[in-house]
Protein backbone atom coordinates (compact mmCIF):
# COMPACT_ATOMS: atom_id res chain seq x y z
CA UNK A 1 0.00 0.00 0.00
CA UNK A 2 1.28 3.39 -0.90
CA UNK A 3 2.25 5.76 1.85
CA UNK A 4 -0.64 8.14 2.54
CA UNK A 5 -0.05 11.53 4.02
CA UNK A 6 -2.14 12.35 7.06
CA UNK A 7 -3.09 15.95 6.56
CA UNK A 8 -4.24 18.40 9.17
CA UNK A 9 -7.36 20.43 8.56
CA UNK A 10 -5.22 23.51 7.95
CA UNK A 11 -3.11 21.67 5.38
CA UNK A 12 -6.21 20.53 3.54
CA UNK A 13 -7.53 24.08 3.56
CA UNK A 14 -4.23 25.16 2.10
CA UNK A 15 -4.45 22.56 -0.62
CA UNK A 16 -8.01 23.64 -1.42
CA UNK A 17 -6.94 27.23 -1.66
CA UNK A 18 -4.06 26.29 -3.92
CA UNK A 19 -6.41 24.27 -6.10
CA UNK A 20 -8.70 27.24 -6.43
CA UNK A 21 -5.87 29.51 -7.44
CA UNK A 22 -4.68 26.89 -9.92
CA UNK A 23 -8.11 26.90 -11.57
CA UNK A 24 -7.97 30.64 -11.97
CA UNK A 25 -4.50 30.39 -13.44
CA UNK A 26 -5.41 27.75 -15.97
CA UNK A 27 -8.39 29.80 -17.09
CA UNK A 28 -6.17 32.81 -17.50
CA UNK A 29 -3.59 30.88 -19.46
CA UNK A 30 -6.11 29.27 -21.76
CA UNK A 31 -7.66 32.62 -22.54
CA UNK A 32 -4.50 34.67 -22.92
CA UNK A 33 -2.61 32.09 -24.95
CA UNK A 34 -5.46 30.48 -26.82
CA UNK A 35 -4.23 31.37 -30.30
CA UNK A 36 -0.80 29.92 -29.64
CA UNK A 37 -1.78 26.50 -28.30
CA UNK A 38 -1.54 23.40 -30.39
CA UNK A 39 -4.37 20.90 -29.86
CA UNK A 40 -2.34 18.75 -27.50
CA UNK A 41 -1.45 21.71 -25.29
CA UNK A 42 -5.05 22.87 -25.24
CA UNK A 43 -6.32 19.41 -24.42
CA UNK A 44 -3.73 19.04 -21.65
CA UNK A 45 -4.75 22.32 -20.07
CA UNK A 46 -8.44 21.57 -20.37
CA UNK A 47 -8.16 18.10 -18.87
CA UNK A 48 -5.98 19.36 -16.06
CA UNK A 49 -8.52 22.08 -15.33
CA UNK A 50 -11.38 19.57 -15.19
CA UNK A 51 -9.37 17.18 -13.03
CA UNK A 52 -8.47 19.88 -10.52
CA UNK A 53 -12.02 21.16 -10.49
CA UNK A 54 -13.49 17.71 -9.80
CA UNK A 55 -10.98 17.06 -7.02
CA UNK A 56 -11.51 20.51 -5.55
CA UNK A 57 -15.29 20.11 -5.51
CA UNK A 58 -15.16 16.65 -3.95
CA UNK A 59 -12.55 17.57 -1.34
CA UNK A 60 -14.47 20.74 -0.43
CA UNK A 61 -17.79 18.93 -0.19
CA UNK A 62 -16.43 16.20 2.03
CA UNK A 63 -14.24 18.41 4.20
CA UNK A 64 -16.79 18.90 6.95
CA UNK A 65 -17.34 15.14 7.24
CA UNK A 66 -13.71 14.22 7.76
CA UNK A 67 -12.61 13.55 11.32
CA UNK A 68 -9.08 14.94 11.57
CA UNK A 69 -8.68 13.88 15.18
CA UNK A 70 -9.47 10.18 15.50
CA UNK A 71 -7.60 7.33 13.87
CA UNK A 72 -8.45 7.55 10.16
CA UNK A 73 -10.83 4.97 8.75
CA UNK A 74 -11.06 3.89 5.12
CA UNK A 75 -13.13 6.90 4.14
CA UNK A 76 -10.66 9.34 5.64
CA UNK A 77 -7.73 7.54 4.01
CA UNK A 78 -9.49 7.81 0.68
CA UNK A 79 -10.15 11.47 1.33
CA UNK A 80 -6.49 12.11 2.10
CA UNK A 81 -5.52 10.29 -1.07
CA UNK A 82 -7.75 12.64 -3.04
CA UNK A 83 -6.18 15.62 -1.30
CA UNK A 84 -2.79 14.24 -2.30
CA UNK A 85 -4.02 13.90 -5.87
CA UNK A 86 -5.24 17.49 -5.79
CA UNK A 87 -1.82 18.66 -4.62
CA UNK A 88 -0.09 16.67 -7.35
CA UNK A 89 -2.37 18.12 -10.01
CA UNK A 90 -1.86 21.60 -8.63
CA UNK A 91 1.90 21.12 -8.81
CA UNK A 92 1.58 20.81 -12.55
CA UNK A 93 0.25 24.36 -12.68
CA UNK A 94 3.38 25.60 -10.94
CA UNK A 95 5.48 24.87 -13.99
CA UNK A 96 3.32 26.86 -16.34
CA UNK A 97 5.86 29.62 -16.46
CA UNK A 98 8.09 27.29 -18.44
CA UNK A 99 5.27 25.47 -20.17
CA UNK A 100 4.24 26.34 -23.67
CA UNK A 101 5.61 29.84 -23.33
CA UNK A 102 2.49 30.72 -21.39
CA UNK A 103 3.71 33.84 -19.67
CA UNK A 104 1.93 37.07 -19.21
CA UNK A 105 2.76 39.34 -22.16
CA UNK A 106 1.99 42.42 -20.11
CA UNK A 107 4.57 41.59 -17.51
CA UNK A 108 7.30 44.11 -16.79
CA UNK A 109 9.99 42.48 -14.62
CA UNK A 110 10.36 44.09 -11.23
CA UNK A 111 13.67 45.20 -9.86
CA UNK A 112 15.69 43.03 -7.49
CA UNK A 113 14.41 43.86 -4.05
CA UNK A 114 10.78 43.27 -3.26
CA UNK A 115 8.55 44.16 -0.39
CA UNK A 116 5.12 42.62 -0.25
CA UNK A 117 2.35 44.05 1.84
CA UNK A 118 -0.74 41.97 2.32
CA UNK A 119 -3.73 42.84 4.38
CA UNK A 120 -4.87 39.62 6.04
CA UNK A 121 -8.42 40.69 6.61
CA UNK A 122 -8.81 41.03 2.90
CA UNK A 123 -7.33 37.61 2.42
CA UNK A 124 -9.79 36.22 4.92
CA UNK A 125 -12.64 37.77 3.05
CA UNK A 126 -11.28 36.32 -0.13
CA UNK A 127 -11.28 32.86 1.35
CA UNK A 128 -14.67 33.06 2.98
CA UNK A 129 -16.32 34.52 -0.05
CA UNK A 130 -15.46 31.33 -1.86
CA UNK A 131 -16.88 29.09 0.85
CA UNK A 132 -13.65 27.41 1.79
CA UNK A 133 -13.68 26.32 5.43
CA UNK A 134 -11.30 28.48 7.34
CA UNK A 135 -9.58 27.88 10.63
CA UNK A 136 -9.53 31.09 12.62
CA UNK A 137 -6.50 29.90 14.54
CA UNK A 138 -4.38 30.45 11.48
CA UNK A 139 -3.83 33.07 8.91
CA UNK A 140 -3.45 31.59 5.46
CA UNK A 141 -2.61 33.99 2.73
CA UNK A 142 -3.19 33.26 -0.89
CA UNK A 143 0.05 32.56 -2.63
CA UNK A 144 1.11 35.77 -4.23
CA UNK A 145 3.76 33.99 -6.26
CA UNK A 146 1.20 32.20 -8.33
CA UNK A 147 -1.52 34.78 -8.13
CA UNK A 148 0.65 36.91 -10.28
CA UNK A 149 2.29 35.11 -13.13
CA UNK A 150 5.61 36.99 -13.31
CA UNK A 151 6.71 35.74 -9.92
CA UNK A 152 6.82 32.10 -10.96
CA UNK A 153 9.99 30.39 -9.97
CA UNK A 154 10.88 32.92 -7.32
CA UNK A 155 11.51 31.52 -3.88
CA UNK A 156 11.82 34.41 -1.50
CA UNK A 157 12.32 34.11 2.18
CA UNK A 158 10.15 36.47 4.13
CA UNK A 159 9.75 38.06 7.49
CA UNK A 160 6.38 38.80 8.96
CA UNK A 161 5.69 41.89 11.01
CA UNK A 162 2.44 42.28 12.80
CA UNK A 163 1.47 45.86 12.67
CA UNK A 164 -1.59 46.72 14.71
CA UNK A 165 -3.36 49.72 13.32
CA UNK A 166 -0.75 50.24 10.69
CA UNK A 167 1.62 52.04 13.04
CA UNK A 168 3.16 49.97 15.80
CA UNK A 169 5.16 46.92 15.05
CA UNK A 170 4.25 44.17 17.49
CA UNK A 171 6.05 41.05 16.53
CA UNK A 172 8.37 39.58 13.98
CA UNK A 173 8.91 36.07 12.83
CA UNK A 174 10.38 34.40 9.83
CA UNK A 175 8.25 32.23 7.63
CA UNK A 176 9.74 31.16 4.34
CA UNK A 177 7.33 30.77 1.50
CA UNK A 178 7.10 27.08 0.76
CA UNK A 179 9.60 26.11 -1.84
CA UNK A 180 7.86 23.93 -4.35
CA UNK A 181 11.20 23.11 -5.94
CA UNK A 182 12.13 20.82 -3.06
CA UNK A 183 11.13 17.26 -3.93
CA UNK A 184 9.84 14.80 -1.39
CA UNK A 185 8.53 17.34 1.05
CA UNK A 186 4.78 17.56 0.91
CA UNK A 187 4.66 20.78 2.82
CA UNK A 188 6.63 22.47 0.06
CA UNK A 189 3.88 21.81 -2.45
CA UNK A 190 1.24 23.97 -0.92
CA UNK A 191 2.55 27.26 -2.17
CA UNK A 192 1.00 29.45 0.39
CA UNK A 193 2.01 31.31 3.49
CA UNK A 194 0.78 30.14 6.84
CA UNK A 195 1.58 30.94 10.39
CA UNK A 196 -0.16 30.84 13.72
CA UNK A 197 -2.57 33.68 14.11
CA UNK A 198 -1.47 35.69 17.10
CA UNK A 199 -3.00 39.09 16.50
CA UNK A 200 -6.43 40.56 16.26
CA UNK A 201 -8.36 40.92 13.08
CA UNK A 202 -7.50 44.59 13.02
CA UNK A 203 -4.24 45.90 11.75
CA UNK A 204 -1.74 44.80 9.18
CA UNK A 205 0.65 42.04 8.51
CA UNK A 206 3.65 43.16 6.61
CA UNK A 207 5.70 40.67 4.70
CA UNK A 208 9.04 41.88 3.52
CA UNK A 209 11.99 40.16 2.04
CA UNK A 210 14.08 39.65 -1.03
CA UNK A 211 13.16 37.85 -4.17
CA UNK A 212 16.37 36.34 -5.52
CA UNK A 213 16.97 35.87 -9.17
CA UNK A 214 14.47 38.37 -10.45
CA UNK A 215 15.36 40.57 -13.31
CA UNK A 216 17.20 43.77 -12.67
CA UNK A 217 15.41 45.41 -15.57
CA UNK A 218 12.49 47.74 -15.17
CA UNK A 219 11.84 49.59 -11.98
CA UNK A 220 13.46 52.81 -11.15
CA UNK A 221 17.01 51.66 -11.53
CA UNK A 222 17.66 51.87 -7.84
CA UNK A 223 17.78 48.10 -7.53
CA UNK A 224 14.71 47.82 -5.42
CA UNK A 225 11.02 47.66 -6.01
CA UNK A 226 7.94 47.34 -3.88
CA UNK A 227 4.66 45.60 -4.36
CA UNK A 228 1.52 46.32 -2.48
CA UNK A 229 -1.01 43.56 -2.96
CA UNK A 230 -4.49 44.70 -2.09
CA UNK A 231 -7.06 41.91 -2.10
CA UNK A 232 -10.79 42.33 -2.48
CA UNK A 233 -12.33 43.39 0.80
CA UNK A 234 -9.27 45.19 2.06
CA UNK A 235 -10.19 48.23 4.14
CA UNK A 236 -7.23 50.04 2.59
CA UNK A 237 -8.79 50.35 -0.83
CA UNK A 238 -11.77 52.42 -1.81
CA UNK A 239 -13.05 54.26 -4.83
CA UNK A 240 -13.70 57.94 -5.32
CA UNK A 241 -16.67 59.47 -7.09
CA UNK A 242 -15.05 58.94 -10.48
CA UNK A 243 -14.46 55.23 -10.00
CA UNK A 244 -10.75 55.65 -9.38
CA UNK A 245 -9.04 53.50 -6.79
CA UNK A 246 -7.86 55.23 -3.63
CA UNK A 247 -5.27 53.37 -1.59
CA UNK A 248 -4.70 54.63 1.96
CA UNK A 249 -1.94 53.45 4.26
CA UNK A 250 -0.46 55.20 7.28
CA UNK A 251 2.96 54.03 6.21
CA UNK A 252 2.74 56.22 3.14
CA UNK A 253 2.44 59.41 5.15
CA UNK A 254 5.27 61.72 4.31
CA UNK A 255 6.33 59.81 1.24
CA UNK A 256 5.73 60.98 -2.27
CA UNK A 257 6.39 60.51 -5.90
CA UNK A 258 7.22 56.85 -6.00
CA UNK A 259 4.14 55.16 -7.32
CA UNK A 260 4.83 53.46 -10.58
CA UNK A 261 1.86 51.57 -11.84
CA UNK A 262 -0.88 49.17 -10.84
CA UNK A 263 -2.22 45.97 -12.29
CA UNK A 264 -5.11 43.70 -11.53
CA UNK A 265 -3.80 40.16 -11.87
CA UNK A 266 -2.61 40.29 -15.45
CA UNK A 267 -4.52 43.30 -16.64
CA UNK A 268 -2.38 46.41 -16.80
CA UNK A 269 -4.47 49.14 -15.28
CA UNK A 270 -2.50 52.32 -15.61
CA UNK A 271 0.99 53.35 -16.56
CA UNK A 272 3.46 55.27 -14.49
CA UNK A 273 1.81 58.63 -14.87
CA UNK A 274 -1.82 57.97 -14.06
CA UNK A 275 -1.80 58.40 -10.35
CA UNK A 276 -1.60 61.14 -7.80
CA UNK A 277 -0.21 60.86 -4.32
CA UNK A 278 -1.12 62.77 -1.20
CA UNK A 279 1.72 62.36 1.31
CA UNK A 280 -0.12 64.37 3.94
CA UNK A 281 -2.96 61.89 4.04
CA UNK A 282 -0.91 58.84 3.20
CA UNK A 283 -2.97 57.91 0.21
CA UNK A 284 -2.79 57.76 -3.53
CA UNK A 285 -5.38 57.81 -6.23
CA UNK A 286 -4.99 55.43 -9.13
CA UNK A 287 -6.91 56.50 -12.18
CA UNK A 288 -9.20 53.86 -13.53
CA UNK A 289 -10.53 55.02 -16.90
CA UNK A 290 -11.57 51.51 -17.92
CA UNK A 291 -13.76 51.19 -14.84
CA UNK A 292 -12.23 48.01 -13.44
CA UNK A 293 -13.74 46.80 -10.19
CA UNK A 294 -12.34 44.60 -7.48
CA UNK A 295 -14.40 41.44 -7.16
CA UNK A 296 -14.07 38.49 -4.80
CA UNK A 297 -10.87 36.70 -5.62
CA UNK A 298 -9.20 39.58 -7.39
CA UNK A 299 -6.19 41.55 -6.25
CA UNK A 300 -4.98 44.97 -7.06
CA UNK A 301 -1.23 44.90 -7.33
CA UNK A 302 0.44 48.27 -7.02
CA UNK A 303 4.05 48.63 -8.02
CA UNK A 304 5.93 51.20 -6.05
CA UNK A 305 9.39 52.44 -6.84
Amino acid sequence: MAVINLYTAAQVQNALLRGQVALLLISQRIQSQFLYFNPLQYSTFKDLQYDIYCLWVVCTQEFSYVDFVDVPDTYVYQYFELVGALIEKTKQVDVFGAYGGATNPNYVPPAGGTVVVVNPSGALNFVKSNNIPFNTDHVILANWQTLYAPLYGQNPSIEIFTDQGGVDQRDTQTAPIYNYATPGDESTLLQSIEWTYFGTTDGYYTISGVVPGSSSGGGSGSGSSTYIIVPFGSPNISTDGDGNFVYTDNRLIGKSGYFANATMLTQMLVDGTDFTSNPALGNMTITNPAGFTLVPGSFLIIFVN
Partner: protein
Amino acid sequence: MSLITSIEYLPQLDPSFFELQDTSNYGGSDPKANISTRTLSILQSDGTALPNYPNPIAFPYSGGDVFTISGLTQDLALKITLSLTPIVNHAGSVYTGEIDIATQRFLQQGEFNIQVQKNNSTMPLSAYANSIYRNNTMDIIIEAENAQTALLYSDFTGSQASLQRGQNIINNTQL
Protein backbone atom coordinates in the same frame (compact mmCIF):
# COMPACT_ATOMS: atom_id res chain seq x y z
CA MET B 1 -39.50 39.47 20.98
CA SER B 2 -41.60 37.78 18.35
CA LEU B 3 -41.17 34.13 17.60
CA ILE B 4 -39.81 33.34 14.17
CA THR B 5 -40.15 29.67 13.35
CA SER B 6 -37.21 28.29 11.45
CA ILE B 7 -35.71 24.95 10.60
CA GLU B 8 -32.30 23.89 9.38
CA TYR B 9 -31.24 20.96 7.20
CA LEU B 10 -28.18 19.08 8.44
CA PRO B 11 -26.70 16.63 5.91
CA GLN B 12 -24.68 13.70 7.23
CA LEU B 13 -21.76 11.64 5.98
CA ASP B 14 -24.08 8.69 5.45
CA PRO B 15 -26.40 9.73 2.61
CA SER B 16 -29.23 7.49 3.79
CA PHE B 17 -30.26 9.88 6.51
CA PHE B 18 -30.26 13.54 7.40
CA GLU B 19 -31.24 15.66 10.36
CA LEU B 20 -33.61 18.58 10.75
CA GLN B 21 -33.04 21.02 13.55
CA ASP B 22 -35.62 23.35 14.97
CA THR B 23 -33.78 26.69 15.16
CA SER B 24 -36.78 28.82 16.17
CA ASN B 25 -36.04 31.62 18.63
CA TYR B 26 -38.25 30.49 21.48
CA GLY B 27 -38.53 32.89 24.35
CA GLY B 28 -40.30 36.01 25.49
CA SER B 29 -44.03 35.60 25.09
CA ASP B 30 -43.51 32.47 22.99
CA PRO B 31 -41.55 29.96 25.02
CA LYS B 32 -41.90 26.28 24.23
CA ALA B 33 -44.50 26.12 26.96
CA ASN B 34 -46.77 28.22 24.76
CA ILE B 35 -46.62 25.67 21.95
CA SER B 36 -49.07 22.81 22.20
CA THR B 37 -47.91 20.77 19.19
CA ARG B 38 -44.94 20.77 16.86
CA THR B 39 -45.12 18.93 13.54
CA LEU B 40 -43.07 18.45 10.42
CA SER B 41 -44.45 18.18 6.92
CA ILE B 42 -42.06 16.72 4.35
CA LEU B 43 -43.35 16.55 0.81
CA GLN B 44 -41.62 15.16 -2.24
CA SER B 45 -41.57 16.80 -5.65
CA ASP B 46 -44.84 15.05 -6.64
CA GLY B 47 -46.58 16.34 -3.52
CA THR B 48 -46.62 13.00 -1.73
CA ALA B 49 -45.30 12.35 1.74
CA LEU B 50 -41.88 10.90 2.34
CA PRO B 51 -42.00 7.07 2.12
CA ASN B 52 -42.40 5.36 5.49
CA TYR B 53 -43.33 8.64 7.17
CA PRO B 54 -46.76 10.07 7.91
CA ASN B 55 -47.75 13.58 7.01
CA PRO B 56 -47.54 15.48 9.22
CA ILE B 57 -44.82 13.99 11.38
CA ALA B 58 -45.08 14.52 15.13
CA PHE B 59 -42.03 16.35 16.46
CA PRO B 60 -42.56 16.51 20.23
CA TYR B 61 -40.29 18.64 22.37
CA SER B 62 -39.56 15.66 24.59
CA GLY B 63 -37.39 14.26 21.78
CA GLY B 64 -35.20 17.33 21.53
CA ASP B 65 -34.88 19.82 18.71
CA VAL B 66 -33.24 17.51 16.18
CA PHE B 67 -35.27 15.08 14.11
CA THR B 68 -33.59 12.37 12.06
CA ILE B 69 -34.99 11.28 8.72
CA SER B 70 -33.60 7.89 7.69
CA GLY B 71 -34.08 5.22 5.09
CA LEU B 72 -33.31 7.33 2.05
CA THR B 73 -32.22 5.45 -1.06
CA GLN B 74 -31.52 8.42 -3.32
CA ASP B 75 -31.36 12.21 -3.23
CA LEU B 76 -34.69 13.97 -3.02
CA ALA B 77 -36.09 17.44 -3.62
CA LEU B 78 -38.20 18.20 -0.58
CA LYS B 79 -40.45 20.92 0.77
CA ILE B 80 -40.13 20.83 4.54
CA THR B 81 -42.47 22.77 6.79
CA LEU B 82 -42.19 23.13 10.54
CA SER B 83 -45.53 24.05 12.09
CA LEU B 84 -46.07 25.19 15.65
CA THR B 85 -49.49 25.43 17.23
CA PRO B 86 -49.52 28.15 19.89
CA ILE B 87 -51.68 28.01 22.98
CA VAL B 88 -51.92 31.79 22.90
CA ASN B 89 -51.45 33.33 19.49
CA HIS B 90 -49.30 36.47 19.67
CA ALA B 91 -49.45 39.10 16.97
CA GLY B 92 -46.16 39.41 15.13
CA SER B 93 -45.05 35.85 15.79
CA VAL B 94 -44.68 33.47 12.86
CA TYR B 95 -45.57 29.90 13.70
CA THR B 96 -44.63 28.25 10.42
CA GLY B 97 -41.17 27.84 8.92
CA GLU B 98 -40.33 26.31 5.56
CA ILE B 99 -37.23 25.25 3.71
CA ASP B 100 -36.86 23.83 0.24
CA ILE B 101 -33.98 21.43 -0.09
CA ALA B 102 -32.46 19.08 -2.62
CA THR B 103 -30.36 16.56 -0.74
CA GLN B 104 -26.99 15.99 -2.35
CA ARG B 105 -25.22 13.35 -0.36
CA PHE B 106 -25.87 10.46 -2.75
CA LEU B 107 -24.54 12.48 -5.67
CA GLN B 108 -21.60 13.73 -3.61
CA GLN B 109 -20.72 10.22 -2.52
CA GLY B 110 -20.94 9.15 -6.15
CA GLU B 111 -18.54 11.91 -7.16
CA PHE B 112 -16.25 10.90 -4.30
CA ASN B 113 -16.22 7.24 -5.26
CA ILE B 114 -15.58 7.97 -8.93
CA GLN B 115 -12.71 10.29 -8.03
CA VAL B 116 -11.29 7.66 -5.67
CA GLN B 117 -11.38 5.17 -8.52
CA LYS B 118 -9.81 7.68 -10.93
CA ASN B 119 -7.05 9.00 -8.71
CA ASN B 120 -6.32 6.31 -6.15
CA SER B 121 -6.03 3.30 -8.40
CA THR B 122 -2.77 1.41 -8.04
CA MET B 123 -3.00 0.47 -11.71
CA PRO B 124 -2.64 3.04 -14.48
CA LEU B 125 -5.97 3.90 -16.07
CA SER B 126 -6.48 4.10 -19.79
CA ALA B 127 -7.02 7.51 -21.35
CA TYR B 128 -10.56 6.38 -22.12
CA ALA B 129 -11.29 5.44 -18.51
CA ASN B 130 -9.79 8.71 -17.31
CA SER B 131 -12.02 10.60 -19.71
CA ILE B 132 -15.14 8.70 -18.61
CA TYR B 133 -14.46 9.29 -14.93
CA ARG B 134 -13.64 12.97 -15.50
CA ASN B 135 -16.70 13.68 -17.63
CA ASN B 136 -19.09 11.72 -15.44
CA THR B 137 -17.91 13.56 -12.34
CA MET B 138 -18.41 16.86 -14.11
CA ASP B 139 -21.87 15.81 -15.25
CA ILE B 140 -22.90 14.82 -11.73
CA ILE B 141 -21.62 18.14 -10.37
CA ILE B 142 -23.64 19.94 -13.04
CA GLU B 143 -26.79 17.98 -12.21
CA ALA B 144 -26.33 18.70 -8.51
CA GLU B 145 -26.08 22.40 -9.33
CA ASN B 146 -29.10 22.15 -11.62
CA ALA B 147 -31.09 20.65 -8.78
CA GLN B 148 -30.22 23.59 -6.53
CA THR B 149 -30.95 26.13 -9.25
CA ALA B 150 -34.36 24.60 -9.94
CA LEU B 151 -35.24 25.07 -6.28
CA LEU B 152 -34.60 28.80 -6.62
CA TYR B 153 -37.63 28.84 -8.90
CA SER B 154 -39.61 26.44 -6.71
CA ASP B 155 -39.39 23.89 -9.49
CA PHE B 156 -39.38 20.73 -7.41
CA THR B 157 -40.12 18.50 -10.38
CA GLY B 158 -37.16 19.89 -12.30
CA SER B 159 -34.95 19.61 -9.24
CA GLN B 160 -35.90 15.98 -8.69
CA ALA B 161 -35.34 15.24 -12.38
CA SER B 162 -31.82 16.67 -12.12
CA LEU B 163 -31.12 14.55 -9.06
CA GLN B 164 -32.39 11.49 -10.90
CA ARG B 165 -30.16 12.20 -13.91
CA GLY B 166 -27.20 12.52 -11.57
CA GLN B 167 -28.09 9.21 -9.95
CA ASN B 168 -28.39 7.60 -13.39
CA ILE B 169 -24.87 8.78 -14.26
CA ILE B 170 -23.58 7.19 -11.05
CA ASN B 171 -25.42 3.94 -11.78
CA ASN B 172 -23.99 3.87 -15.29
CA THR B 173 -20.41 4.47 -14.23
CA GLN B 174 -18.42 1.27 -14.11
CA LEU B 175 -15.79 1.42 -11.40
